[in-house]
């Protein structure tokens, strides 16, 4: 793969240049990615942003259409979404790796046009995790702290500069357009990058055996009830998860003006899947089971890959201190 070098101080200059004809999204704090207006706003930290990238493709609140009462009756106005070019800078490789996973769902029997419009208008420059945070388990799921899946360019922080791996044509075009910021890489730098990646991979010790889970997870296992005990259905894991994608359709407003919305939802919620006279998942453990079964059994069965990229947020932010890798082990051991 072709590679370049980007001097450390030039990253923010590159962002400033990109801002001339792009929206730019980057980590703005330890909490989240956000749209930035200058390279100085880039927030590069050892901590992975609390919230993943998914909201920039699958917004937590998306207006589908508006209705207005006019003299002629009810008027429906479909919502329009922007197609301005956008660059995401310093995205975590795991967040980016979730996008091909989500593509499968949003491009399944129904093509979600607004999702793909956002995918289409976005170029992604990832930044390798140096060092990988302690709760990550991306490696066991085929990812890496310096993974490239989904990215157009991957930045790897070397001792003196960013190593820039050109992954896609789109990435290549960007590098060419902004050639003044980049330098040629050399074998020494390429090797350093490879060595660092190996080092980081070795630091990721938590793991999940996805193949075994796919076989062994059992809907009827007696272990679920016990496993679910600590969980308080808080839904943080699903909201922070880069791959969880359940949504709800809701209306807000009144007779005169209302909007129909698509909102993030969570299988942890008590009213999730609740229907007028029936709730197929009435109790807590059945909701808990659904989350794990969906991620590691149903999704792989439907789409050929697990609904997880090993970002570790669900472990890091779980109010009850639940470790999904341990819970899954117990789910298959104690059935």
């Amino acid at each position, binding site marked *: 793969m072709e590679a370049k070098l980007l001097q450390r101080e030039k990253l923010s200059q590159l962002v400033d240049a990109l801002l001339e004809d792009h929206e730019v999204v980057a980590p703005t704090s330890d909490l989240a*990615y*956000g749209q930035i207006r200058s390279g100085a706003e880039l927030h590069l930290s050892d901590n992975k942003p609390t919230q993943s990238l998914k909201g920039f493709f699958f*917004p*937590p609140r*998306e207006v589908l259409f508006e209705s207005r009462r006019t003299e002629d009756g009810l008027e429906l106005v479909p*919502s329009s979404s922007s197609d301005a070019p956008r660059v995401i800078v310093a995205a975590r490789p795991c967040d980016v790796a979730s996008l091909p996973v989500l593509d499968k769902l949003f491009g399944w029997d129904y093509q979600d046009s607004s999702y793909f419009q956002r995918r289409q208008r976005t170029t992604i420059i990832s930044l390798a995790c140096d060092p990988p945070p302690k709760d990550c388990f991306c490696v066991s799921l085929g990812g890496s702290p310096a993974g490239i899946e989904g990215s157009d360019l991957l930045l790897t922080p070397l001792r003196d500069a960013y190593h820039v791996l050109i992954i896609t044509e789109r990435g290549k075009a960007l590098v060419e357009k902004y050639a003044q910021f980049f330098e040629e890489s050399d074998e020494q730098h390429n090797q350093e990058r490879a060595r660092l990646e190996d080092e980081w991979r070795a630091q990721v010790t938590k793991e999940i055996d996805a193949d075994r889970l796919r076989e062994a997870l059992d809907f009827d296992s007696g272990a679920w009830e016990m496993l679910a005990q600590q969980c308080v259905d808080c839904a943080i894991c699903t909201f922070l998860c880069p791959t969880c994608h359940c949504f709800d359709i809701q209306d807000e407003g009144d007779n005169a003006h209302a909007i129909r919305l698509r909102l993030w939802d969570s299988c942890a919620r008590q009213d999730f899947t609740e229907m007028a006279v029936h709730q197929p998942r009435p109790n807590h453990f059945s909701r808990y089971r659904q989350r794990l079964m969906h991620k590691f059994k149903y999704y792989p069965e439907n789409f050929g890959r697990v609904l997880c990229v090993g970002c570790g947020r669900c472990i890091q932010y779980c109010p009850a201190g639940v470790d999904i890798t341990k819970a899954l082990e117990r789910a298959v051991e104690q059935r």
Partner: protein
Amino acid sequence: MTQEGETVQTADTKEQEDGYEPKLVAFLCKWCSYAGADLAGGGRIKYPANVRIIRVPCSCRIDPKLVVKALERGADGVLVSGCHPGDCHYTEGNYYTRRRMLMLFKLLEFLGLDPKRVQMSWVSASEGPKWAQVVEEITEDIKSLGPIST
């Protein structure tokens, strides 16, 4: 995070000019304050037309959520009014209202809402003039504050 389809509201500064007519929502118990407002009407006592009255059986039916909702939906001020302490038709409803509203007002103030925007009054069935005066004063208060900036 910026999402498509999201509208960001800004304070309409133009409204702050002289022509600004605030919207005031008032929740009145039907035994005292609503009857007091009727009495003001009977006495042809004039007061500003900014107020919209919602009639409830007792001030204790006024859910603090309603006040919050009124503000959310663009009311510039909210008034809660009931019988004087000890005069409640249901003997003690207004005492509960008093506790609830004090807490609501304290919370809203802590969140940065000017205390003049949410007020409470005791207006009895015989206090038509007081009712008119309360509306007059609150309308003035809110006019001087201008719209809530969101």
